[in-house]
């Protein structure tokens, strides 16, 4: 026995030494992309843990990346849009994917756009809009959330006094916590795994989770699971919208995005994100399709007032991309071409959209909405739905095998803004 004094010396020395090693290891692996430590093959080439810390990772990445174009949206954009795909026009590069998975509201897009622009050099922005967000009033939180505290500016454009402290806190938590150490070890451990999840330095996410799930459970289960979740969501949104009067919720957030972009001479493209027919049908059956049409009409009016400075693309339709059939239950081999599940599209479809919006040639998919085209577009989609859902004798949808009960295309006039 060495005695208590020796015990204390060894303990203090071990604690300091081990603490130093833990911090150095976290710094070297940089599991959340906070420091931009050079990636090392076999150790930190892939960053699978950023999956749960996308806002933290991308807010640090974008400051190092200095993009000319920023793509903004929720998890479908994070996964489905490849910022480094060659289909982007050269003039728009470098492109950064600022899609954030998780709970997402349209006002977040404005905050993200503000943050990206604050890094300097952003000339154009592509903002994807989830139609469901417009059917639920946002619940403003008077206190700044963690992500908000991290941003360089406040929602009103003034400098954020909390930003430096939050970023210092981010750095501390990224090197001096057990969670970071576990995530660093996990990052290293997953490097050799085939098909590992990653976050590229341009913000693009990988599809590894979906690839694994499709291999293990089959595409049908992926669709069925999301259908169940979207059905719950639609059922919650329907009563909110039933008595809604005036412009749709979140439209003011889009107006703020437009105003911000125009004030800084940033080329803005708004995109109504594509969904698979399963999701579309769920919202039809929940009685929300008139609101989808109202959304397109109101967005068109908003964009029209900008006299061509802003473009509005609509990919929410019944095109051949959106209605691709889903493999049968139990089939774990047959892939889909365009969608992982009803709300998440594949990178192939992302490329098609980029080509369609910014390239010279692309398949007919989606269209630019203008005051002249929106009514026709809405009518065409109704007709397409009639053709697909009402007149088909066999069910075509994954989890929605019961026939529609809404006489299919009877549309009630939505409440117009007063």
């Amino acid at each position, binding site marked *: *026995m*060495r*005695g*208590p*004094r*020796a*015990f*204390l010396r*060894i*303990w*203090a020395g*071990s*604690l300091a030494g*081990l*603490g130093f090693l*833990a911090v150095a290891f976290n710094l070297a692996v940089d599991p959340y992309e906070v420091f931009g430590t050079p990636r090392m093959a076999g150790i930190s080439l892939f960053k699978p843990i950023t999956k749960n810390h996308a806002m933290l990772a991308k807010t640090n990445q974008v400051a190092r990346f200095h993009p000319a174009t920023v793509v903004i949206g929720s998890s479908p954009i994070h996964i489905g849009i490849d910022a480094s795909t060659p289909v982007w026009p050269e003039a728009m590069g470098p492109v950064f994917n600022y899609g954030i998975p998780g709970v997402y509201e349209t006002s977040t897009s404005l905050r993200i756009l503000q943050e990206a622009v604050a890094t300097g050099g952003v000339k154009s922005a592509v903002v994807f809009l989830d139609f469901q967000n417009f059917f639920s009033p946002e619940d403003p939180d008077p206190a700044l959330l963690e992500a908000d505290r991290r941003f360089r500016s406040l929602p009103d454009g003034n400098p954020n006094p909390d930003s430096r402290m939050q970023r210092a806190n981010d750095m501390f*938590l990224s090197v*001096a*916590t*057990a*969670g*970071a*150490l576990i995530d660093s070890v996990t990052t290293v451990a997953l490097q050799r795994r085939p098909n590992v999840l990653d976050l590229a330095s341009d913000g693009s996410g990988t599809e590894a989770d979906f690839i694994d799930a499709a291999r*293990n*459970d089959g595409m049908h*289960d992926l669709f069925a*699971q999301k259908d*169940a*979740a979207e059905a719950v969501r639609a059922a919650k949104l329907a009563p909110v919208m039933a008595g809604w009067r005036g412009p749709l919720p979140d439209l003011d957030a889009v107006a703020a995005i437009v105003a911000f972009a125009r004030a800084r001479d940033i080329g803005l493209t708004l995109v109504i994100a594509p969904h698979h027919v399963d999701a579309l049908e769920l919202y039809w059956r929940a009685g929300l399709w008139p609101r989808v049409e109202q959304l397109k009409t109101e967005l068109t009016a908003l964009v029209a007032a900008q006299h061509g400075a802003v473009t509005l693309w609509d990919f929410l339709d019944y095109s051949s991309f959106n209605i691709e059939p889903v493999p049968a239950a139990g089939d774990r081999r047959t892939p889909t071409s365009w969608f992982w599940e009803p709300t998440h599209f594949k990178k192939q479809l992302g490329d098609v959209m980029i080509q369609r919006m910014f390239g010279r040639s692309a398949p007919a998919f989606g269209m630019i909405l203008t005051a002249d085209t929106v009514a026709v577009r809405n009518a065409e989609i109704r007709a397409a739905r009639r053709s697909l859902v009402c007149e088909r004798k066999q069910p075509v949808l994954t989890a929605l095998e019961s026939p529609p009960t809404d006489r299919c295309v009877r549309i009630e006039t939505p409440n117009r803004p007063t």
Partner: protein
Amino acid sequence: MLFNSYIFIFAFLPPVLAVFYVLGARSREAALSWLIAASLLFYAWWRPLNILLIAPSILINYGIACYLKRIGHSNPAHARVVLIGGVVFNLCFLGYFKYIAFGEQALNDIFDAGLPLTQVILPLGISFITFQKIAFLVDVHAGRIERFTFREYALFVLFFPQIIAGPIVHYREMMPQFKVASCRFDAEDVSVGISLFFFGLAKKSILADPIGRVIGPLYDHAASGVPQSLADAWIAALGFTLQIYFDFSGYCDMALGIARLFGIKLPVNFNSPLKARSVIDFWARWHITLTRFLTAYIYMPMTLYLMRRRAANGQPARRTRDAKVATFLGLLAVPTILTMLVSGLWHGAGYTFILWGLLHGLLLCVNHAWRLIRPRIWPDTASYNRLAAPAAFMLTFLSVVFAMVLFRSPTVAGAAMLWKGMIGVYGAAMPRAILSHLGPIGGLLVQLGVQPAWTSGTMFVGAAARIGVLLFIALALPNTLELLALYQPALGVKPAGAPGRLLRFVAWKPTGTWAVSLACVALAGILSLGELHEFLYWRF
């Protein structure tokens, strides 16, 4: 200030200790005065107003105690009145701050009184401090404390390692230690102290907090009326039992460790309660100093009063094995249930805590009744202890887990919903992904009625694995007191006469191996402080 915070570990404790040792080398009195000042700073850190709320109460109690000491022997009747006045004052003080809003809510619920709810700032640790002050007055009145100064009294009440969440200490077990404490650096005390502290920190931040994050949503869902399946309900019940177990165990270890850094040994407060083989045994291991207080100052006086009254009425006044049901009810069941009702109320101002206390009171009565009946139906105590031990352990464990649901649920309805889930009223469900990977067993489970659910298989497996590990640690491994028994980690703890092979092997000693191991434990605990989590017992 939380024990499990950077500010306490790095900014408060080291300088307080350093100054204490430096002053102690020159003047013991100065070191103890510094300890009082540091305790005040600790108490005021969260909300300085706390000091203004608690200081008058401390002064009044000190005045009452001085008066009691002066008149104690000369005028017993008057002293008794003064004591009762002091106790009532303390109970009113506690009642106002802790129970006024609940009382108004209860009146509104029962009589639809429409009373506005009074918003009161609850002084930290008020329940602990109040009980300690009451015990002090009773001890002074009984002549068990003959001499005390204001500084000693202040040190007794404010000593920061135990001020907010116990243990509830007696003056007579603390003051003799302060009177002989060297107040200087003692390598053995510091070695034992930091070991206890970091074991406690690891229990809190590595074992208790993560499972709390898993079970929180389950209780919220149940409280909002969402039925919980069999597996989820059991995860909620077992998970919370283990969360509060390691939370409170961790806190007690940290309190013991911090006190030991100052050369003071606190009484044992937690001793592997989940290993108990009866509910009586459980309460002899869980929050031991509270049980001690309730027994000494509520249960025993009530029982004595009832015995005297029964004796005066010519009724049997002793609890024997031949006692009639009425005697059992009158002399044991009534005081037990009332005492546990107080225990429930002490833990929290809410219906769930009241029911939790009553439920434990009922369980204790059943336990006492079985102790009286068992010798008649199973006279061989040796064989009973040998054969019935596993069943006794399981029954106790399940009873405690079942009752803990009330302790955590925001509402009684939420607890009822979870209880129904635990007995399968809402059916059994498992994540679809797990069932599909179980192959034929999954198919069998589905045939038996287990429903596939679109819930996360990873979370389900993670929660089940975590509960399994925590149960193993709680039930199979030696506790901290046993590990450090050679160095008397708490008052009254002595090495086991014949320690088991595992304990002999792992017993704490100031060796290099233990120093490095403790450094790993300490580092894990410190690194887990990234998010702050309050100790559950700090809210009482």
